[in-house]
């Protein structure tokens, strides 16, 4: 019989999510070092959002796919029945289970790293990253682990997710559709067309998490094209909007943790820091979109940073 008081306190769900998010950052940093390049700031900003979705928000079944990702089986066509998507890593499709639609697929490395931390992908899966003939692509495709739709042309995934949500409602399914988006996608007109349609058709079985890191390829978003006030805009479009600290697992999960039947889309704007957990990155501001080390000295700095992060985690 266990004795109260001397057992180590079980880790809280939020602490677990934080631990997974930090592990994701380390893994992405490691691969940015190995490849001398990577979408590192996206890992810093989104790690808690994606970890919270997988660990606390979404109802997903166990992975249906091998730990070692299958090689690319060719593009979809009538002549290629072997083509597949990476959706099986998010579990089977069932009426009561949720679905995950990953929109900013240049975050692929973050998603792969998370899938590894969650044992949905094997620990060596990133050996295939950006390797010719592999599905673990640099910019995720619909055949990449964890991906379900073709989304690299930004803002197209939200509309496809809307169609999936509409189909699920027609079939009377209880599972929800979760979409992960980046804030830059709110510069595209299609995003606003999609929100108009989601609200007009009263689709309450869809929820959208936005990594609002305020960064894009050319630099800070407010130096490229403003999208604020994003919450007010989305409210005006008929969505239920929550603005939260995007690094706080409890705050991230709270809006979704509701038995309320909705008749409008849920949006969680996760305000995030693109350098979170890697203070060193701030030196590179304002250009954070894609990190490539400029000198041996900089590489060595990040290498030792990874070593110290690993030591902290032990």
């Amino acid at each position, binding site marked *: 019989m266990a004795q109260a008081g001397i057992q180590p306190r079980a880790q809280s769900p939020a602490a677990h999510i934080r631990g997974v998010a930090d592990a994701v950052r380390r893994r992405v940093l490691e691969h940015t070092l190995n490849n001398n390049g990577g979408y590192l700031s996206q890992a810093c900003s989104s790690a808690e959002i994606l970890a919270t979705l997988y660990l606390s928000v979404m109802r997903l079944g166990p992975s249906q796919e091998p730990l070692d990702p299958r090689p690319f089986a060719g*593009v*979809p*066509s*009538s002549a290629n029945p072997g*083509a597949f998507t990476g959706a099986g890593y998010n579990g089977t499709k069932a009426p009561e289970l949720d679905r995950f639609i990953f929109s900013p697929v240049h975050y692929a490395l973050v998603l792969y790293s998370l899938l590894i931390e969650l044992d949905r992908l094997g620990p060596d899966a990133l050996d295939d990253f950006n390797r010719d003939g592999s599905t673990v692509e640099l910019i995720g495709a*619909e055949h990449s682990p964890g991906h379900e*739709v*073709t989304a*690299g*042309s930004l803002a*197209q*995934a*939200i*509309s*496809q*997710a*809307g*169609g*999936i*949500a*509409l*189909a*699920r409602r*027609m*079939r009377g399914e209880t599972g929800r559709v979760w979409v992960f988006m980046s804030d830059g996608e709110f510069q595209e*007109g*299609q995003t606003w*067309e*999609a929100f*108009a*349609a989601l609200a*007009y*058709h009263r689709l309450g079985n869809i929820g959208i998490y936005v990594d609002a890191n305020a960064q894009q390829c050319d630099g800070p978003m407010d130096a490229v094209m403003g999208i604020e006030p994003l919450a007010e805009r989305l409210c005006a479009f008929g969505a239920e909007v929550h603005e939260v600290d995007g690094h706080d697992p409890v705050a991230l999960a709270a809006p979704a943790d509701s038995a309320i039947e909705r008749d409008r889309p849920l949006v969680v704007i996760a305000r995030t820091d693109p350098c979170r957990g890697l203070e060193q990155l701030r030196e590179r501001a304002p250009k954070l979109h894609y990190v490539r080390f400029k000198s041996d000295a900089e590489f060595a700095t990040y290498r030792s940073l990874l070593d110290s992060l690993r030591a902290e985690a032990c």
Partner: protein
Amino acid sequence: MMESVQRPHRENLIRWAASRPEVLVLSADLTSSCEADGFRDTYPERFFSMGMAEQNMMGFAAGLAREGFFPYIHTFAVFICRRPFDQVAMSIAYPNLPVRLIGFLPGITTAGGVTHQAIDDIALMRILPNMRILECGDATDVESVLDVAQDIDGPVYVRMLRGEVPRLFDPSEPLRFNRARVLTQGAEVLVLSTGICTEEAVRATQALRTRGLDVGHLHVSTLKPFDDPTVLEAIAKAKRGVITMENHSVIGGLGSAVAELMAERGLGVRLLRIGLQDTYAHGASRQYLMREYGLDAMALVRAVASLIGQPLALTEDDLAAVRLETMRQVDKTEDL
């Protein structure tokens, strides 16, 4: 006399969809204009108004198709092929999803002017892998194209006709996938026509045959894939040359497809392409524009004369006097 049918798609869609609960219609504020109002009123639970937002509509259609539904997008051809081209390419064509894109007002069939005239739609859809393209030329094509589209595994673009549509072909002979209709056989000159150009071509070929010219004529309704053996055989037999006739730019449409086929097969006869000669059009009546841009029967007569190198004593009055009747396909063994 040739029959014409009022709004054949409108009634056919209602009838055809009755036994197909998986068929949905998506519309972008052109529901009656695309003859989908009957479907909307009959099956309101299967009709979705997506507003004037074609890019999003393509994505919704893709999502619905991934879930096992068959979305039939109804809008003008220009709004399928131009504005949301990226969405059609990435959300629909790449994953080979069974979305049916029903495009109305092909070419110069509208007085709506350059913004409403799809003169490049076949070219744009032809370059998309996985996309198949069908074009209707009469009421029988309109009434049978849905069956053909629905049997296709993947996305289909249909060039549809609306309003008063002539019945050129016997209703007992439906449109067949990747099979041209052989309207006349002939070995001297071969005419390949699509869409509304077929009616004009028939007017000309009938008059030409009365002058003893051995002209063959095929109505093409599948523009992609483009490997119909009927077409290949007919081209191989054409001694003096081939003329294509289409309600589209001569770049990227039927004329281009035929040119590619002839070059690849080494079929070395001349090819003349009737169509919009790399020009935009403007708002005017169909008859006016067909004459202005040389898409009418007289344009075909001129092309034949050019091909055989001798003038043909045919006037517009001669062509106007041609009586058109609903045709049956020529039996391929018939000796002409």
